[in-house]
């Protein structure tokens, strides 16, 4: 029987198998940040265990960091302490840290690809569920808990049962204005937030083959929102062109040798999956969510479905929406363009392209947060910042920001926010805040109009 892309990468990293038990999986790259690492460092210290391979770890500060005045001391004492601890732990253990203010600093899932740390065929982990992002390169990448962070520190390995496999194919051509985020929200709305649990997903078909690396990252990033540990896309010329020339990418002959190896990372024709789903690109429209999990999404021109389930009713009550109603015309006062899902240069280009020559609605507070220092720099180099400023917006400094509202960037109680992030859970963006997930295009349009509009009518 043939092997899937996932099988090929997984099997190559199995150190050993415990009879009737899990396998020992070797981890190539370990990404860490300030929030989920301190307790793992403490475990090793308490038990007097050294870190096995500190050179395979890369650290950044992102979850907790302010997005204004990053040159000043952080006001919140707990946040400041958490960052100080990361700095101390990294220095003590010889771990490369791209801390606040460093030219490579940014959201961990934005910086690792842009620095060329993420490469096809790797196994990668991080104490963050959106580690699934890196699967866009044909890597096995997944989020882990802090106990597992400690395990990787100690042994560069994890004990895991091999997950099941799922393939999601989307074929055909996407309509104008339909972005990778819409594809992800559409699939999650169709399959639900638990459909992927226990599985690794391979995304295949025309739509993903034609997608840019940044679009593929958006899709793989959202695979955790359907419960999957990770998503993957087979590496191809698009992948190699993206990786080539980046800081940590192999060079010259070493790069060509790697490409030859990466070319084998494709699912065999006779391989089988535990589950398969196929969708048509032409059925997908710009999406928006109306509820409190990412599976509660509709076409932006559609109506909230009818459902008498108690959890569904609780969700709509929190959001202040009625079943059967349309979201078009709803006033929105907050827009967030950012997060590891949609804070890369292409996302800002989409927004700038729509915003150019228009003015921000007076009721709108918009937070535009680049994913990294490098994205911020490129925004300036391309002159996009001028477009934003002329339209009445300002750019903030990089970080996770209002995606999870750990820092000061909180959406106020009761306010709606159209957000390019990944989770619309109750209170995710601030206590009592109501999140509507959408693409950067829908976010930009909302910021200009001050309300939700049917973007498809404006495009065609």
């Amino acid at each position, binding site marked *: 029987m043939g092997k899937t892309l996932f099988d090929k990468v997984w099997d190559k990293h199995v150190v050993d198998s415990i009879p009737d038990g899990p396998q020992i999986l070797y981890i190539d790259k370990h990404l860490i940040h300030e929030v989920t690492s301190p*307790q793992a460092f403490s475990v090793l210290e308490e038990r007097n*265990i050294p870190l*096995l391979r500190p050179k395979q770890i890369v650290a950044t500060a992102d979850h907790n960091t302010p997005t204004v005045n990053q040159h000043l001391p952080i006001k919140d004492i707990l946040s400041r302490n958490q960052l100080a601890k990361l700095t101390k732990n990294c220095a003590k253990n010889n771990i490369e840290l791209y801390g606040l203010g460093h030219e490579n600093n940014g959201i961990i899932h934005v910086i690792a690809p842009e620095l060329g740390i993420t490469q096809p065929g790797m196994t990668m982990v991080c104490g963050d569920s959106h580690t699934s992002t890196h699967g866009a390169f044909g890597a096995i990448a997944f989020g882990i*808990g802090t106990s*597992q962070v400690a395990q990787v520190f100690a042994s560069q390995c994890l004990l895991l049962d091999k997950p099941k496999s799922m393939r999601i194919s989307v074929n055909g051509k996407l309509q104008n204005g339909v972005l990778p985020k819409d594809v992800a929200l559409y699939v999650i709305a169709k399959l639900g937030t638990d459909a992927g649990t*226990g599985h690794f997903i391979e995304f295949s078909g025309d739509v993903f083959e034609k997608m840019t690396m940044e679009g593929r990252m958006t899709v793989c990033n959202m695979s955790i929102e359907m*419960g999957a*540990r990770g998503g993957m896309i087979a590496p191809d010329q698009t992948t190699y062109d993206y990786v080539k020339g980046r800081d940590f990418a192999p060079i010259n002959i070493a790069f060509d040798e790697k490409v030859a190896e990466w070319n084998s990372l494709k699912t065999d024709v006779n391989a089988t999956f535990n589950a398969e789903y196929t969708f048509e690109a032409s059925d997908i429209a710009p999406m928006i969510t109306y509820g409190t999990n990412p599976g509660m999404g509709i076409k932006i021109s559609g109506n909230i479905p009818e459902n008498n389930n108690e959890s569904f009713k609780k969700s709509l009550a929190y959001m202040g929406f009625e079943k059967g109603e349309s979201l078009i015309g709803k006033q929105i006062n907050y827009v967030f363009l950012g997060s590891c899902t949609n804070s890369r240069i292409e996302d800002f280009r989409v927004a700038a392209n729509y915003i150019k020559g228009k003015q921000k609605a007076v009721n709108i507070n918009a937070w535009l947060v680049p994913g990294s220092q490098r994205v911020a720099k490129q925004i300036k180099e391309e002159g996009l910042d001028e477009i934003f400023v002329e339209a009445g917006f300002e750019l903030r400094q990089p970080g996770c920001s209002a995606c999870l509202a750990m820092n000061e960037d909180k959406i106020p*109680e009761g306010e709606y926010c159209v957000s390019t992030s990944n989770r619309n859970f109750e209170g995710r963006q601030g206590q009592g805040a109501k999140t509507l997930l959408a693409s950067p295009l829908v976010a930009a349009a909302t910021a200009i109009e001050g309300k939700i509009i049917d973007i498809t009518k404006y495009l065609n």
Partner: protein
Amino acid sequence: MEKFTIVQSRAIPLAIENIDTDQIIPARFLKATDRKGFGNNVFRDWRFDKEGNLNVGFALNDAKYSGEILVTGHNFGCGSSREHAAWAIGDYGFKVVVSSFFADIFKGNALNNGLLPVEVSPEFLKQLLDTIIENPETEIKVDLKAQTITLLGTGESESFEINDYKKTCLLNGYDDIDYLLNQKEKIEKFEQQNS
């Protein structure tokens, strides 16, 4: 890690589906750098209103419910990988979480902290919830060795799955680090072969 054998206690019903880890422990409480104390803020925004007053209608605040077993709706623990969610539930005093379905990362995190996730059929879950709500004094027995969960009043029981390796770890209080450290030679050999 503490050894896990049998837990027999009353239970607290939380009949909500898709409870995500942001509800279990909101992100603003993740700034601590040790593992203790998260129980104070478990389900914070459901237990308290925004002024910090107790929400008396919420099951954890309802004096008629108590116990070391939390019985919850489908797809419990979805969302963020924060292990703080498992720490918070354990720190509050729970030893078992029962649901008809758990999100992957939460399940792993719970097992790594001696908090047993027990997955039951949707029918048995409904029966558990209905029975507890009707008679909060109902006791439930969870036997890890036998892999059974039993409603003591009626004797109705269901068996649950757990992989043998994790079961051994929980019964003996071992964790994965102990095991992996003993595999160092194999790991180094693997590195040499693949460098």
